[in-house]
């Protein structure tokens, strides 16, 4: 056996997703609206499922409805639809109880930026 420990210090570049991550860092949701079909993707897609490459950044409220969820040893995760977005997104859930359906995007409490929801009463409040 040859024990070996290696620590890798990455500097990852966010590239075209920079506006999305800059907003996420402040707890804001920045999606991408397709110029052809007007569907909003969040997290943003470079190419819309309709095939269109052009799009514009649009600010969303950050409110979302949790549609499917799973809970286990590594935390709670869900497929949630953000208000204004056409499709679901993968999110981490913080502080959700079993009956809670709605959440608000929040700044992540972990090292890496990611979509994280905290519970709210409903998406209109």
């Amino acid at each position, binding site marked *: 056996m040859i024990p070996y420990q290696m620590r890798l210090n990455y500097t*990852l570049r966010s590239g075209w997703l920079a506006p999305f991550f800059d907003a996420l860092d402040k707890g804001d949701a920045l999606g991408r609206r397709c110029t052809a079909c007007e569907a909003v993707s969040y997290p943003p897609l470079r190419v819309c499922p309709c095939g269109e490459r052009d799009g514009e950044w649009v600010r969303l409220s950050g409110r979302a409805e949790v549609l499917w969820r799973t*809970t286990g040893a590594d935390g709670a*995760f*869900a497929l*949630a639809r953000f208000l204004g977005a056409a499709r679901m997104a*993968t999110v*981490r859930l913080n502080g959700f109880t079993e009956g809670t359906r709605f959440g608000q995007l929040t700044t992540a409490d972990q090292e*890496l930026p*990611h979509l994280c929801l905290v519970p709210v009463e409903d998406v209109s409040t």
Partner: protein
Amino acid sequence: MTSIDDSKVIVTGAAQTRFNRRKDNSSFRDWAAEAFNAALEMAGIDRAEIDALFVASESDFFSLQLNPVALFASELGLHGVAGTRCEAGGASGQVAVQSAAQAVLSGQARHVAVIGVDPSASSLSGDMIRTLYGFSFDAMTDGFSGVTATALYALSWQIFAAEHGFGDDELACVTLQNRANACANPDAHLPRTDTADEIAESPMIASPYRRLHCSPLSDGAAALILSDAAYVPAARERASRIAGMGAATDHMHLGVRDDPGMFSAKRKAMQHACRHAGIAPGDLGLAEIYDSFAGAQLQGLAALGLTDAPGADLENGAFSPNGRCPVNLSGGLMGQGAPVGAIGVAQVAACARMLEGTYHEELQPSSPPAYALADTHGAVCTTAAVTILQNGGAA
């Protein structure tokens, strides 16, 4: 697409090591050599006759070996051959098989070697592997959240299960059958005989998936020799042959898919493979299915078109060892194990041996069918690759 010349690509050699967690200080190099030497002996050719080497290995993080194909060319005595490393997550092995078959079909190679290998169990801790697997999805938008493969599979399964009215009973049924098959497979990692209650009481990993619904992390290797029919030794002329291949991708983000419970890439890959082979899914007489989790097997069977009623067919034993299309006689990933790069290669090896009538005695179908299916995918079926093998008449 045109049909594959059904006499062109012969599986002349097929072998694998035992899949398990190695504690004997053996290396992935040793496992690859063991599988390769066995496949070469079965093929009855000299290593100098091999023109190309294809290596399936999911991640350099596991082995700490970049450019593994060059390493294996040296380790296996194949100095000078053309070398290609293939990677598509869990589908890596099948992608290597298909790339190798294409090399034969194109006329660029007479005999090719395929090696699938990964030290998925013994090099890193389970927690570290789980972290790495989280980057199998869009690492920046999904992986950074700490979401695991199990969690994403669980979400996909829930959607499929809601559509079909499935629950824990169906998960237990798949788990029990695959692990029971593994009990007759001496190469299997998890030949377990748990009860349904024990499955239901195992720790929750990501609801509804419990530990016993999951495939293990395994070490191991598998190898194939694929040959142009014009150069096959006489003793192997009636070996199994590759009749159809298909591969496809799906949206990387689960939530973007039209139906996140449906493995659409698998469906598309299967349609390509059946068109190549000139058969329908109903013509398949056995299948090795990518059962990374118990529910994934049922999602796979539905996507592949092997059933229109997965619940009823599960209940009536259609996929049991004596059913109309036995599934995962090897035990699948859940029973035999999952050294990632080796999975697809081992599936093709198992199908080839079952069609030839030389598989493990207790698991060998008494009347080998005309066609068998090897099915893999990577991530939550973001990449899919399936291969159809045809009985060459050896059995």
